[in-house]
């Protein structure tokens, strides 16, 4: 007996929350708003757990993939049929557990964090909206429905980044995020069009089946499709070159950064590539591009994270870097490793952000690490949970990050010479990661208190409980192991690409990674705890490099000069003056002017002068007469026919 899974409720419950809180929220008492905002996502999570239970055999078992469709079709044109079909398989189940589980924890955290904010109800409605779109994205059975979710999370991101919209920087950051996303989405759309053109269908299972039927089809148009999809993924997952929005997105509330820009939305790109892996597998060039983008972003972002002073910015660049790892994993066709890292990353990155939020909350809104210090004793829970997260992200055994990062580096190493180069870049990035994470750790929690006018106190319970839960997950989240994950995901992502050649290679690589991380810790310890004056000396010694990296390689300025300024100039001068004022305004003026002029001319005809009226009457009469006569052909009037008609009638009397 198979109990129905009610997949359709998973997105719709948060959507109901969005509507209720959005429309009624401000008028309801805060308790009710909180209840709506929390219980509906919790119900979603419960449904996901129910689905997990029924699938893993603790109750009745439902074979995967389980698909549900809404009873009405969406697009039905000719041979193209697109429906609202939701598909639950192993991959989407893992994603859903992360999204609804971590999402719910962040909702709980937000109750405490946003407690005093005026837009409390609006916040929860947007958060629920995000959940709705994200779950739709993950559950989608065809590319178009996924794109709906894709766009929707971009919208939710914009709304939440610019949540405090009265602040100009926040509003600008929201715009930047949306625009950068949009550029990526354009690439995604082109990819969808190419898919539709070449496969005639957008359903994932159908495309996979068509590809499986033609084993020799590689490269060519498939590369083009994959590259277009990659553009979309880079936009959403903040990879080069469309990453510029993610650091600015830290203008939003910290729980938003945790949920959207760490755990879930930015991982949509990775999910998308894993979901369409059957396309990427056919195109070595595309895979290579993915790997290179991932590795480059990972390294690049890590260098930038090293120089940031805002605690959230460091974490933002760290997110970019870790996403780069996931892309690297996808690029070497180790999709299950990417998803594994996605999962562990969700745990420790969300934890990092939430702990940072707790620190910021304790410091009364201060985000600059140079003003923090010595918070270890004052915020114990925050300190210990953050420590767990820092160790996890650096890849120390036995924390979560170790297992997943290791799986990625191992898979990269096995891919020939290019793979070894990528592995090396990944290793260096791991070093940098350890350095900047421990730098953050030391600057925030150790040393002298650098600001004396705040009195930090621990966060309320609603904020601490999620921290503890996530801390536990950061410690033991990786223990499930890559083999079990890849076996579980194998029906969806294909078999694990790493044959157990020699168990020792993997072991040596792991030890090397841990050693590198430990070296990073030592470096951070030296520069930021024992001799805190050294960083400044180093910066003074290499001013050029320091300026370059501290200013984020001037990429924002570069984009501004290449894209933004010309576009603004074009809009202002050509579209604004020439088209809007000149052509459109001129056309309107012309139309009005013609009417006015015509009226002025015709007005003089109505003079009231009787004789002129008479004259025009005479003219009209003459014209009518001419017309009437001319109707009779050739001006010849024959009275015979007319008179005969008349005499007949007259004779009738």
């Amino acid at each position, binding site marked *: 007996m198979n109990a129905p899974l009610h997949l359709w409720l998973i997105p719709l419950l948060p959507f109901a929350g969005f509507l209720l809180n959005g429309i009624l929220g401000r008028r309801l008492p805060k308790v009710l708003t909180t209840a709506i905002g929390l219980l509906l996502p919790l119900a979603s999570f419960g449904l996901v757990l129910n689905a997990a239970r029924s699938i893993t055999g603790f109750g009745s078992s439902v074979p995967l993939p389980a698909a549900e469709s809404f009873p009405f079709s969406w697009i039905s044109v000719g041979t193209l049929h697109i429906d609202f079909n939701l598909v639950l398989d192993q991959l989407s189940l893992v994603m859903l557990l992360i999204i609804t589980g971590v999402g719910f924890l962040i909702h709980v955290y937000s109750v405490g964090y946003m407690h005093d904010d005026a837009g409390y109800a609006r916040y929860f409605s947007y958060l629920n909206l995000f959940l709705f779109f994200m779950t739709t994205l993950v559950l989608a059975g065809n590319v178009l429905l996924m794109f709906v979710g894709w766009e929707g999370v971009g919208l939710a991101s914009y709304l939440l980044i610019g949540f405090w919209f009265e602040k100009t920087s926040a509003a600008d950051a929201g715009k930047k995020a949306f625009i950068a996303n949009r550029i990526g989405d354009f690439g995604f759309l082109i990819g969808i069009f190419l898919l539709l053109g070449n496969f005639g269908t957008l359903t994932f299972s159908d495309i996979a089946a068509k590809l499986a039927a033609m084993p020799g089809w590689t490269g060519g148009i498939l590369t083009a499709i994959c590259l277009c999809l990659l553009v979309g993924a880079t936009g959403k997952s903040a990879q080069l070159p469309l990453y510029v929005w993610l650091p600015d997105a830290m203008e939003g509330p910290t729980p938003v950064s945790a949920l959207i820009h760490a755990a879930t939305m930015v991982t949509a790109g990775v999910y998308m590539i894993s979901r369409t892996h059957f396309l990427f597998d056919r195109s070595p060039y595309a895979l290579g591009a993915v790997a290179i983008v991932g590795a480059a972003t990972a390294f690049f972002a890590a260098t930038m994270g090293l120089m940031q002073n805002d605690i959230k910015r460091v974490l933002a660049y760290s997110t970019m870097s870790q996403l780069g790892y996931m892309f690297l994993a996808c690029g070497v066709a180790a999709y299950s490793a990417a998803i594994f890292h996605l999962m562990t990353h969700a745990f420790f990155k969300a934890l990092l952000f939430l702990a940072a939020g707790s620190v910021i909350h304790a410091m009364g809104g201060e985000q600059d690490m140079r003003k923090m210090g010595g918070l270890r004793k004052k915020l114990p829970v925050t300190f210990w949970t953050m420590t767990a997260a820092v160790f996890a992200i650096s890849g120390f055994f036995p924390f979560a990050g170790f297992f997943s990062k290791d799986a990625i580096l191992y898979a990269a190493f096995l891919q020939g010479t290019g793979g070894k180069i990528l592995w090396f870049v990944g290793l260096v990035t791991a070093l940098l990661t350890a350095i900047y994470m421990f730098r953050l750790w030391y600057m925030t929690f150790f040393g002298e208190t650098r600001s004396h006018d705040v009195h930090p106190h621990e966060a309320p319970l609603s904020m601490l409980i999620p921290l503890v839960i996530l801390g536990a997950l950061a410690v033991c989240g990786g223990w499930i192991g890559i083999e079990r994950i890849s076996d579980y995901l194998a029906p969806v992502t294909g078999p694990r690409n790493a044959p157990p050649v020699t168990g020792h290679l993997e072991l040596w690589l792991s030890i090397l990674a841990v050693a590198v991380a430990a070296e990073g810790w030592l470096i951070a310890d030296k520069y930021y705890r024992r001799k805190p004056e050294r960083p400044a000396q180093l910066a003074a010694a290499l001013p050029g490099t320091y300026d370059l990296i501290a200013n984020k390689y001037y990429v924002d300025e570069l984009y501004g000069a290449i894209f933004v300024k010309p576009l603004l100039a074009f809009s202002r001068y050509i579209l604004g003056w020439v088209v809007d004022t000149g052509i459109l305004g001129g056309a309107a003026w012309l139309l009005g002017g013609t009417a006015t002029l015509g009226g002025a001319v015709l007005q003089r005809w109505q003079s009231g002068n*009787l004789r002129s009226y008479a004259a025009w009457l005479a003219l009209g009469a003459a014209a009518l007469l001419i017309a009437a006569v001319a109707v009779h052909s050739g001006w010849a009037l024959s009275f015979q026919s007319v008179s005969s008609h008349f005499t007949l009638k007259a004779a009738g009397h």
Partner: protein
Amino acid sequence: MDVPLSWYLLLSAALFSLGVIGFLIKRNLITVFMSIELMLNAVNLSFVTFAHQWHAVRGQIFVFFVMTVAAAEAAVGLAIIIAIFRARNTLAVDRIDLMKL
């Protein structure tokens, strides 16, 4: 000696044109009105001519009606002229060019 009916029609056309000219060039309102009467008479002549041509009595009946209506029209029109004269104190056609009395 018979008179061709076309001569009657030509006379009618001439009278009509003279009426139109009078309507256009005369400056006294009453004279303009008289030109209109002249036009009506010209048309009457034309009707009678055709009635004669086809031995149709209806032509003459129409003239009868035209006469009646013209009489009524003359009465009302002259009353209007009197009313205008009382308001404007002038009978010059060019001075009476506003609707509002």
